[in-house]
C-alpha cells in the first residue's frame, strides 16, 4: 500500500461527517427518485396481491421464477459484507478500512431485500404468518424442520441479526463522535445510541477483540446461509438441481457478486461523497485481485457442476443442460452470463491499469452482477421447464412487467436504504481511518523509503 498525506482527526471528522451534519441537494434528489421507484414496486406488489399470481409469468411447472432468482441474488450480494469485513479483519489487511462499514451495511439491506422476496412470491403473504404464529401451533401442526424452507428463514434471520449487531458494535465510537458534534435533540439521540462511550483503553481493547471475535463467529454463519439456500435446490430431485456441489458453488458465486457490488458501491460513494482522500486506486486494485481469485475458484466449481451433471448420462440432466446452452433464447442468456461473469472481466482485471481505473472497475463490476443474476436465473428456470420426464409437461417462462417492476424496486430499495443510512451514520468508519493513519510508518532500505505499518504484536 502506498499511503497519501495524513489528515488530522478534525479533518477526518469534517470530511466523513459531511452528509451526516448537512443535507446536500443531490441527496434529496436521489432519495426522491429512488423513493418513487420503490413506491412503484410496492404498487406492483399490491396489484399482484389484488389480482393474483397470474399477473406474473409463473405457470406450471415453472413456479420459481424472477422472485426466487432475486431472493438468491440478494442473499449473494449480502455475502460481501462478511467477506470484506470479517475475513480482511481477521487477516489484518489494512486496505479494508474504508470499505468495511459500507459493505456490512449493504449486507444488512441486501438481506432485508432478500427476505421480502419469499413474502412477495407467496402471493398471499399473510398466510406465511399462520405458519409461524399460534394459529397452527394451537392445532399442534408445527413447522417441519426437515424442510429446507424452514432452514432458510432461520439462517437468514440469524445472519441478519448478526450483521446488524456487527454494524452497530463497530458504529459505537463513531456515534460518540457525532454526539460530540451535535446539539439539541440530535445530541440526545446520538448520546443514547453511543451508550456513553468515552474512548478509554479498556473500551478500545474490547472494541478490537469484538471485531475479531464477531468476525470469527459470523464467518461460519456466512458460509452456512447461502449453503442452506443452495440446499433448497440440491435436496430436491429436480434434474440439474440434485448435485452435491451447489453449497460451495453458491457461496463462491455469492462472494463473486457481493465483492463486485462492493466495488460498485465504493466507486459511486467516492464520487457522490467526494471521498478521494479515503478511497484510492490501491483499494479497488486489492478488491480486483481478490475478485480474480474468487472468479477462478467459481469457474472451477462451475466446471465441476457441468462435468458431473453429464457424468451419469441421464437423459433429463442432459436435456436441461442442452436447453441452457444451446436453445435460444436461453443460449443467448447463457452466453451473456458466461461473458459477463468471467470471460470479459477476469482477463481485464489482469491488467494493472484496469484494476486501478475507477471507470473500468465500475463497469466490470456491474457486468459481473448482471451476469450473476442471469446465472441464478439459468440455474432455476430451465430446470423447472424440463422438470418432468414427459415432453408434454415441458413449458417456458417469460417474466411479466410486474416482476420486472418488483425486481427494479428491490435494487432501488437497497440504494434508498443506503442513502438514508448515510444521512444518519458515516459510511466510512472514522475511528478505523484514524487508527490506520496512526499506524503508518516507513522503513529505509538503501535510498528508498518503503511504506510500512506498526504492528502491535
Amino acid at each position, binding site marked *: 500500500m502506498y499511503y497519501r498525506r495524513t489528515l488530522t482527526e478534525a479533518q477526518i471528522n469534517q470530511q466523513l461527517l459531511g452528509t451526516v451534519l448537512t443535507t446536500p441537494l443531490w441527496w434529496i434528489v436521489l432519495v426522491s427518485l429512488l423513493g418513487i421507484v420503490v413506491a412503484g414496486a410496492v404498487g406492483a406488489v399490491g396489484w399482484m396481491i389484488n389480482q393474483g399470481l397470474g399477473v406474473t409469468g409463473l405457470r406450471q411447472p415453472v413456479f420459481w421464477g424472477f422472485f426466487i432468482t432475486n431472493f438468491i441474488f440478494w442473499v449473494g450480494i449480502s455475502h460481501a459484507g462478511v467477506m470484506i469485513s470479517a475475513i480482511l479483519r481477521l487477516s489484518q489487511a489494512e486496505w479494508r478500512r474504508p470499505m468495511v462499514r459500507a459493505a456490512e451495511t449493504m449486507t444488512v439491506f441486501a438481506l432485508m431485500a432478500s427476505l421480502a422476496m419469499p413474502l412477495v412470491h407467496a402471493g398471499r403473504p399473510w398466510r406465511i404468518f399462520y405458519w409461524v404464529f399460534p394459529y397452527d401451533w394451537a392445532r399442534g401442526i408445527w413447522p417441519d*424442520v426437515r424442510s429446507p424452507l424452514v432452514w432458510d428463514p432461520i439462517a437468514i434471520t440469524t445472519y441478519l441479526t448478526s450483521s446488524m*449487531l456487527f454494524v452497530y458494535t463497530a458504529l459505537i465510537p463513531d456515534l460518540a463522535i457525532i454526539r460530540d458534534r451535535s446539539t439539541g435533540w440530535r445530541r440526545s439521540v446520538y448520546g443514547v445510541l453511543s451508550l456513553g462511550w468515552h474512548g478509554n483503553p479498556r473500551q478500545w481493547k474490547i472494541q478490537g477483540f469484538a471485531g475479531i471475535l464477531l468476525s470469527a463467529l459470523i464467518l461460519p454463519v456466512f458460509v452456512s446461509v447461502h449453503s442452506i439456500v443452495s440446499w433448497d435446490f440440491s435436496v430436491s430431485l429436480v434434474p440439474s438441481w440434485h448435485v452435491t456441489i451447489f453449497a460451495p458453488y453458491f457461496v463462491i458465486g455469492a462472494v463473486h457478486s457481493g465483492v463486485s457490488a462492493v466495488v460498485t458501491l465504493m466507486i459511486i460513494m467516492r464520487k457522490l461523497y467526494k471521498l478521494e482522500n479515503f478511497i484510492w486506486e490501491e483499494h479497488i486494485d486489492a478488491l480486483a485481485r481478490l475478485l480474480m481469485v474468487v472468479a477462478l475458484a467459481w469457474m472451477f466449481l462451475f466446471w465441476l457442476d457441468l462435468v458431473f451433471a453429464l457424468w451419469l448420462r441421464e437423459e433429463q440432466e442432459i436435456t436441461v443442460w442442452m436447453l441452457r446452452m444451446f436453445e435460444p433464447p436461453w443460449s443467448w442468456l447463457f452466453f451473456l452470463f458466461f461473458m459477463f461473469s468471467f470471460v470479459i472481466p477476469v482477463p481485464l482485471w489482469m491488467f494493472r491499469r484496469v484494476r486501478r481505473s475507477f471507470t473500468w472497475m465500475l463497469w466490470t463490476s456491474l457486468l459481473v452482477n448482471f451476469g450473476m443474476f442471469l446465472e441464478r436465473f439459468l440455474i432455476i428456470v430451465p430446470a423447472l421447464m424440463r422438470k418432468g420426464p414427459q415432453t408434454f409437461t415441458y413449458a417456458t417462462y417469460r417474466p411479466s412487467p410486474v416482476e420486472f417492476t418488483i425486481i427494479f424496486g428491490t435494487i432501488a430499495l437497497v440504494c434508498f436504504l443506503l442513502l438514508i443510512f448515510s444521512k444518519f451514520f458515516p459510511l466510512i468508519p472514522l475511528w478505523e481511518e484514524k487508527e490506520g493513519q496512526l499506524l503508518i510508518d516507513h522503513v529505509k532500505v538503501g535510498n528508498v523509503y518503503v511504506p510500512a505499518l506498526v504492528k502491535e504484536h
Partner: protein
Amino acid sequence: MANTQLLGLFEDPQKVADAMGELKGAGFPVEDLDIYSGSPFPEGAFGEHEAEHRLFMFPLVGALIGFSIGLLWTAGTQISYPLITGGKPILSIPPMTIIMYENTMLGAILFTVLGVLFESRLPKRDLGLYDERITEGYIGIYVDCPVERASAAEAVLNSNGAEEIKKA
C-alpha cells in the same frame, strides 16, 4: 478520604505518554489513571493500566444456550407432531443439526455483543468529566485522586503541556 477527578487535555500524544510516566513516578496508582482518545492506540502506548477481561467466556455460554434451545425445539416439534416425510425418521438428525448449528451461532453472537457492552462498562448514563475535543484529536488524561493530591496532579499535567485541565 474524599476523592476528586481531573481531566487534562493534550494535543500531542508524546506529551501524554510523558505525563503518564511522571504521574506514575509521583506515586499515583496506574489503576487511578485513565486515557480518553478518539481513536485506538496500540496497547500500552501511554503506559496505562492494561485491562483484563473475560470476553471469550460470553460466546461459549451463548453457544451452549443456543445449542440447547435448538435441540429442544427441533426435537420437541418433531416428537409433538410425528409425521414421516420423505421416508425420513421422526427424529432426523441431519436437518436438526442444521437448525441447531444456526441457533448455536446466534446464541454465541448475541452473547458476544452483550459481553462487549458488559466488558466495556456500557451503557453509561452520565458522561461525567469529559470534553468533546477528545473526538477531534485531543487526548485526555483522567486522574482520580485524593483531594490533597489534586494540586500535585495538576502540576504534572501543566508541566507536560496540558492545553486545559478540567475539574469535577
